[in-house]
């Protein structure tokens, strides 16, 4: 084996094992920063030693032992008196360092990252860093934050977890729904489309798709009986399935109803349907399941030859009633226009306050579409201009601008 092959093996081990090993170190020490340092030092040693000594039979066990020794050294140098308690815990645990399988503490790690005592804005970055080992630079660019700023936020959050003594255990049964909601929200945020952006689900930034899917699958594997975990994974899979159809060969934005279904990924759709079926079997309403069901309706178009706008209106109505967010109301209105109920859609939009929609692009796209359906051309133009001014994605901006410049009344597609 060449040293390059060994490097690849080490990197693959890093990807597959990083979060698992870190979670085990943190569960003992409660110190994420020190555990990260200890683990990365262990990876560096592996890169140095394995090419010489050969790859150990159980690479994870090797890494864990090395990281634990590093962590003990690190904690020994800390001046906090009760570091000795952590040291003892580590020594006891080391009685079985060569055990063939380690417990998977990553779920506890996810719950700590999305703890209510942690600033919501840093929960997703914290997950990406601890579970997947992403660096602050990569995370910062995905969230449009300077790497140094992101680094500081992560350091502060880790310090809070350690100093304030957050619980590194699964939440009690009665707290589970609320706590799980925070975890789901943080994973969905990694996908790049916040809950509020539901009407614009095709517009989100997509930098961390692979990572978000990994977290979604991990959560399903670790909590197989939570319907909303399946619901979230189904939702992300449906969105992913349509990704290849979302842009033209020239990079132009293609709205859902103009997409070529032959470009949709069949195997992702099958996986999504399977997850949604698992979720629905519980018979408990959940917003991610509901959103996934909405995606499922869209996916039926090539099979039935039409989009079932009545079903969409019903699902969005349910969503807005149970989770009354701006995004849900706007999406409901968008579905109503398509179902031929433009006046009702206008009433739904009219119920939102100015400060809720001032900077919410999907509202203005939908409002323009409502005015078009009602034949109010001036009002449509005005709303469209607002939408263009709020659009981040150049391809979407071009798409909207083309509608504006075209004479006559052209149908606007809500994404």
């Amino acid at each position, binding site marked *: 084996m060449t040293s390059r092959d060994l490097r690849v093996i080490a990197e693959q081990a890093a990807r597959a094992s990083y979060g698992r090993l870190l979670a085990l170190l943190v569960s003992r020490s409660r110190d994420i920063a020190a555990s990260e340092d200890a683990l990365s030092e262990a990876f560096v040693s592996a890169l140095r030693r394995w090419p010489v000594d050969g790859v150990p039979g159980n690479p994870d066990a090797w890494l864990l032992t090395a990281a634990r020794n590093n962590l003990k050294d690190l904690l020994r140098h800390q*001046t906090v008196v009760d570091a000795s308690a952590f040291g003892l815990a580590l020594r006891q645990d080391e009685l079985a360092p060569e055990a063939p399988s380690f417990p998977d503490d990553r779920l506890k790690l996810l719950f700590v990252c999305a703890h209510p005592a942690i600033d919501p804005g840093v929960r997703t970055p914290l997950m990406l860093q601890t579970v997947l080992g992403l660096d602050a630079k990569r995370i910062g660019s995905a969230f449009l934050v300077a790497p140094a700023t992101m680094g500081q936020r992560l350091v502060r959050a880790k310090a809070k977890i350690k100093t*304030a*003594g957050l619980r590194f255990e699964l939440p009690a049964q009665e707290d589970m729904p609320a706590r799980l909601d925070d975890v789901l929200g943080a994973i969905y945020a990694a996908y790049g489309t916040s809950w509020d952006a539901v009407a614009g689900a095709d517009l989100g930034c997509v930098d961390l798709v692979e990572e978000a899917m990994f977290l979604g699958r991990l959560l399903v594997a670790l909590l197989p009986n939570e319907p909303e975990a399946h619901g979230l994974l189904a939702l992300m899979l449906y969105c992913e399935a349509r990704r290849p159809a979302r842009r033209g060969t020239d990079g132009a934005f293609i709205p859902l109803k103009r997409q070529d279904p032959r470009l949709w990924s069949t195997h992702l759709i099958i996986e999504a349907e399977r997850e949604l079926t698992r979720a629905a079997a519980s018979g408990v309403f959940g917003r991610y399941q509901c959103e996934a069901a909405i995606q499922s309706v869209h996916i039926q178009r090539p099979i039935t030859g039409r989009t079932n706008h009545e079903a969409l209106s019903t699902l969005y109505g349910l969503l807005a009633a149970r989770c009354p967010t701006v995004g849900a109301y706007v999406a409901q209105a968008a579905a109503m226009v398509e179902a031929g109920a433009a006046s009702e859609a206008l009433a739904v939009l009219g119920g939102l306050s100015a400060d809720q929609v001032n900077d919410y692009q999907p509202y203005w796209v939908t409002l323009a579409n409502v005015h078009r359906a009602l034949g109010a051309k001036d009002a449509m133009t005005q709303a469209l201009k607002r939408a263009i001014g709020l659009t981040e994605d150049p391809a979407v901006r071009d798409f909207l601008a083309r509608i504006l410049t075209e004479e006559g009344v052209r149908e606007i597609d809500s994404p």
Partner: protein
Amino acid sequence: MHAMQYMLLLNEPGDEFAKRNDPEQAGAYWGGWNAFIGAMAQAGIIVKGDGLEGPHTATTVRIRDGKRLVQDGPFADTKEQLGGYFVIEVPDLDAALEWAARAPSAASASVEVRPVMPPKAPPGA
């Protein structure tokens, strides 16, 4: 399992302070606090704690340019004022937050929860 100490800073709004000496409301006010404190005592988690006299009894001192500035009133004139504190010993922040949520002032104002600094070893130890 090592335990940690947290201070619960119990903030109260003006109308809650007023209840302390109002013959009609004092019974319910103190009843609520006594039940909360009693439950903490039963659980054996209290390290120490006290109620404080109202903000109208507060005096604030500052040294500025070597001069002593003594001022009538609390350090900040806010709606919520410190009405008391407890230091409790529990396993983690989550447990401390559960206790904080049971304090009567969590509903009327707020409870701030802070970890107590652990003792530092002498340098070089």
